[in-house]
């Protein structure tokens, strides 16, 4: 799990689920809805890729199509589940006691700890696109917790902004990870400096094109890098949007 890699968008795992038939209890939606998932790491039926990256286990680029589409309420333990809404609207319900509606830019971190349930639904006709990130906790069976926040691309442009982890303004989670975002609209070069040489950095291109440590990446491409003291990110004149996840080994 600790080797550097480049993963092109088309090399990711792909699964499609229907709200009818065998998966009807798992997938919401009526009369017919489809949920598609591109996985960067092994998850569910996709098991021919890599098993994760540091403390990261799941990275799903998911599309909920059709009113009511999503995941019906189901159980979790331990995992810290983060969702970043890219498009559309997500209705999230959890047993910590939250019922939230999130739109593009909104995100949450739900730590399932000793046990919790959640439900993830698109109640609208337009598609909802979400990035789901699952992180191992640093302790087992912690008290469940939930936090939500918002990334505003209009006011936080052209700089690396911390969303989750041990940083000012970020949602704190019980693990040595930090999730950041960079939304740019001009050509520039920035250095991302990991907390230590032991930390790994996973960069996912949400939109646009970027050069990460001399590797050109296009929309939905990603790279995982270990042993980098400073990671050079080069954007172009066109808009670019990145999610950057730093993790302990």
């Amino acid at each position, binding site marked *: 799990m600790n080797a550097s890699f480049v993963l092109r968008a088309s090399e990711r795992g792909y699964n499609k689920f229907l709200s009818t038939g065998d998966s009807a209890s798992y997938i919401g939606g009526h009369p017919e809805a489809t949920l598609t998932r591109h996985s960067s790491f*092994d*998850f*569910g039926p996709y*098991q021919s890729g890599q*098993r994760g990256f540091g403390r990261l*286990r*799941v990275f799903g680029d998911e599309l909920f199509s059709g009113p009511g589409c999503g995941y019906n309420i*189901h*159980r*979790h*333990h*331990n*995992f810290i589940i983060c969702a970043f809404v890219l498009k559309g609207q997500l209705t999230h319900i959890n047993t910590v006691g939250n019922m939230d509606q999130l739109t593009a830019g909104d995100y949450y971190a739900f730590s*399932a*700890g*000793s046990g919790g349930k959640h439900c993830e639904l698109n109640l609208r006709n337009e598609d909802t696109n979400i990035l789901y990130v699952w992180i*191992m*906790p*640093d*302790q*087992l*069976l*912690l*008290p469940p917790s939930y936090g939500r926040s918002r990334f505003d691309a209009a006011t936080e442009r052209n700089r690396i902004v911390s969303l989750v982890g041990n940083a000012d303004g970020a949602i704190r989670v019980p693990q040595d990870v930090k999730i950041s975002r960079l939304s740019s609209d001009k050509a520039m070069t920035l250095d991302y400096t990991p907390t230590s040489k032991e930390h790994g950095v996973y960069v996912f291109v949400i939109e646009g094109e970027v050069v990460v440590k001399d590797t050109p990446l296009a929309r939905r491409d990603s790279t995982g890098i270990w042993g980098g003291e400073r990671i050079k990110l080069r954007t172009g004149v066109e808009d670019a949007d990145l999610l950057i996840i730093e993790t302990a080994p």
Partner: protein
Amino acid sequence: MNNEPLKRWMCLGCGFLYDEALGSAEHGLAPGTRWADVPEDWVCPDCGTPKHMFEMVEIPYAPGQPVVRPIA
């Protein structure tokens, strides 16, 4: 006699935890049942993920855990 320390296994489908020391009485697995002795066709009781998609974890428990509930 197996002198290996007892281990913990986590479901990568949902986070369910199987602790060899505790077993899982409600699923017919006595305390001390090693992962290797859990039947190969056993699946996660919460989400149905197969046994081979669990991961051995060396993560400590949170303070006050595990709370073992008596079986009614």
